[in-house]
């Protein structure tokens, strides 16, 4: 349920010129997202004021991206400009709150943009609680190059999101994934990177070799992935800025895949197959020193570190069907945590440490789900012909995953969903895409 501290109803009853409104409140304007929001919070974001002609187009674009970020969460609803009564023509002028109360805007975002002649933009904004007639937090100014305008917009939206939800934000983030093209029996794959919203798509490898399941390093400057570049599946580490890459060699005749970084950024946990048997190993990325974590005739794969680096959750079919297990990061006895009907795979530990996202296959359907780290409170968030490979938003509130459609013309696409199961959305990309890995919030 939505929990406006001040309900819509009382706001209307109090009318426009009610200075008591602020005193009626228990606290600041705040939307609680822990239990899932049914009724989004209405906000207005009039087009940011352009300080000069050169800034006009940027002001338009930046405002649009801020609104897309906020409304895209499903937590906020933009009141369209056509419904606005008030107009913001000067960033510094006092706000006429009655104009915004009249259209029931709970939150108001006001901003200005200026462009100097040297390709730099300055963006300023303030966030207001309309019914309290107060500013929420401080005004902020951001500066950057013109081609960084989207990041500035995301940063504004991140500020608004954080101030209104009390949660960390996630808009200024990127996703590394596998771009797909071609028919199902001859699919071309290449590593690609984009902003979380599908913008600024760039390719990191060409399409000559199969690439699978990239994962960001803790600093988001490197990517681990599996490639058939040598003819056999091997693990590579790629530098995001230069797209330069190197192989992490393992013993000859072995197949290595499913690599993920430990939080230390030096240790890599991965699957290694020898003699048809797949176990988990770690490797120090500097020294290449390898140690074995599991030793079982079953398949052990899809590992993921806990954010504190102390434990690893992974997938194993030691019980017959694939299930999820947790073990100490150094190996040792593993505890099974999944007990529902069906098969469980691709566990990924939440950046908050509280939940594990997974893929579940049951009765011919695939689901993305979350459970607590002890396996309790399992919750399925999606259902389709084929959903797999969840990755967490930096704030642990949203999951992105691969959804593949059925049949000969089947295509893979990226989707996102809240951990409440609400707000399922396709990531706007006009290419096939799979295996997303979400970065942290950019610095």
């Amino acid at each position, binding site marked *: 349920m939505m929990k406006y501290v001040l309900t819509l109803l009382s706001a209307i009853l109090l009318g426009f010129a009610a200075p008591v409104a602020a005193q009626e409140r228990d606290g600041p304007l705040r939307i609680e997202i822990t239990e899932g929001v049914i009724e989004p919070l209405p906000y207005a974001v009039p087009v940011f004021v352009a300080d000069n002609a050169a800034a006009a187009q940027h002001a338009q674009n930046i405002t649009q991206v801020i609104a897309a970020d906020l409304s895209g969460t499903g937590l906020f609803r933009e009141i369209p400009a056509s419904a606005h009564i008030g107009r913001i023509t000067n960033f510094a002028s006092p706000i006429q709150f009655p104009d915004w109360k009249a259209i029931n805007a709970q939150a108001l975002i006001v901003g200005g943009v200026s462009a100097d002649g040297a390709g730099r933009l300055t963006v300023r904004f303030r966030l207001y609680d309309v019914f309290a007639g107060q500013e929420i937090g401080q005004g902020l100014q951001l*500066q950057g190059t013109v081609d960084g305008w989207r990041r500035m917009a995301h940063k504004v939206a991140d500020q608004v999101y954080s101030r209104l939800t009390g949660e960390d934000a996630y808009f200024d983030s990127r996703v590394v994934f596998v771009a797909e093209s071609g028919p199902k029996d001859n699919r071309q794959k290449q590593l690609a990177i984009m902003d979380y919203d599908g913008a600024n798509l*760039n390719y990191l490898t060409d399409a000559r070799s199969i690439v699978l*399941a990239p994962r960001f390093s803790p600093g988001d400057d490197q990517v681990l992935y599996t490639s058939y570049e*040598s003819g056999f599946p091997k693990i590579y580490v790629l530098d995001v800025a230069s797209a330069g890459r190197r192989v992490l060699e393992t013993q000859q005749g072995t197949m290595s895949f499913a690599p993920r970084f430990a939080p230390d950024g030096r240790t890599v946990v991965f699957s290694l197959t020898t003699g*048809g048997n797949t176990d988990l190993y770690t490797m120090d990325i500097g020294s290449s020193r390898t140690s074995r974590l599991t030793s079982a005739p079953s398949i052990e*794969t899809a590992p993921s570190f806990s954010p504190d680096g102390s434990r690893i959750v992974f997938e194993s079919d030691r019980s017959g*069907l694939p299930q999820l297990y947790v073990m100490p990061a150094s190996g040792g006895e593993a505890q099974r945590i999944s007990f529902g009907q069906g098969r469980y795979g691709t566990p990924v530990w939440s950046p908050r440490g509280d939940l594990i996202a997974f893929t579940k296959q049951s009765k011919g359907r695939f689901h993305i789900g979350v459970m607590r780290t002890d396996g309790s409170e399992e919750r399925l968030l999606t259902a389709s012909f084929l959903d797999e490979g969840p990755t967490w938003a930096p704030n642990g509130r949203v999951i992105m995953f691969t959804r*593949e459609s059925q*049949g*000969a013309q089947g295509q893979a696409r990226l989707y996102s969903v809240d951990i409440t199961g609400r707000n399922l959305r396709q990531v706007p990309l006009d290419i096939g895409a799979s295996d997303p890995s979400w970065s942290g919030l950019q610095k």
Partner: protein
Amino acid sequence: MFAYDKLNKEQMKNEWGNPMNILSKTTILATVLALGACSSADRFGNSDAVDLNNSGVAGGALAGSPQDPTSAAYFQQTVGDRVLFAVDQSTLTPQGMATLDGQAQWLSTNIEYSAVIEGHADEQGTREYNLALGARRANAVLEYLTAKGVAPNRMKVISYGKERPLEICSEESCYAKNRRAVTVISVVPTS
């Protein structure tokens, strides 16, 4: 009056510059497909085995043609280059063993050939698990052929998981053909 974001000028340049500029200047290293089995034109197989024994062609087969019993094409089409597996299984079926008996016999006669055994899975499974499952299937073939006298150093295994389906429908009729291990032979050394 404003709290300034603490990014300095240099950081702006580095972090907010267009990453495409950096990327486009980077040499994308040429990738080399070094798989020994590439000489086979039909690596992932797109033809069902056709029995050419009854084709009426008698004697004088062209070297390398499906009628030449020492050719890769003969191995693929007449001996049978693949075995199929049940859902989630890597156990060989009686039919699969019969095919592998033929493969072992052929490989013992044609000793100049090496083999790469490719394991595959259908699309009903997660990507990385299916990679491991494909490896299990390929290894089951390798172990069987080894037991039948094929030297292990003539063989290699690789798994493609669900990355290279042969049939693309989303039904069991297609899945059954995709759960396979294919023995791809070549005279190019595999190591």
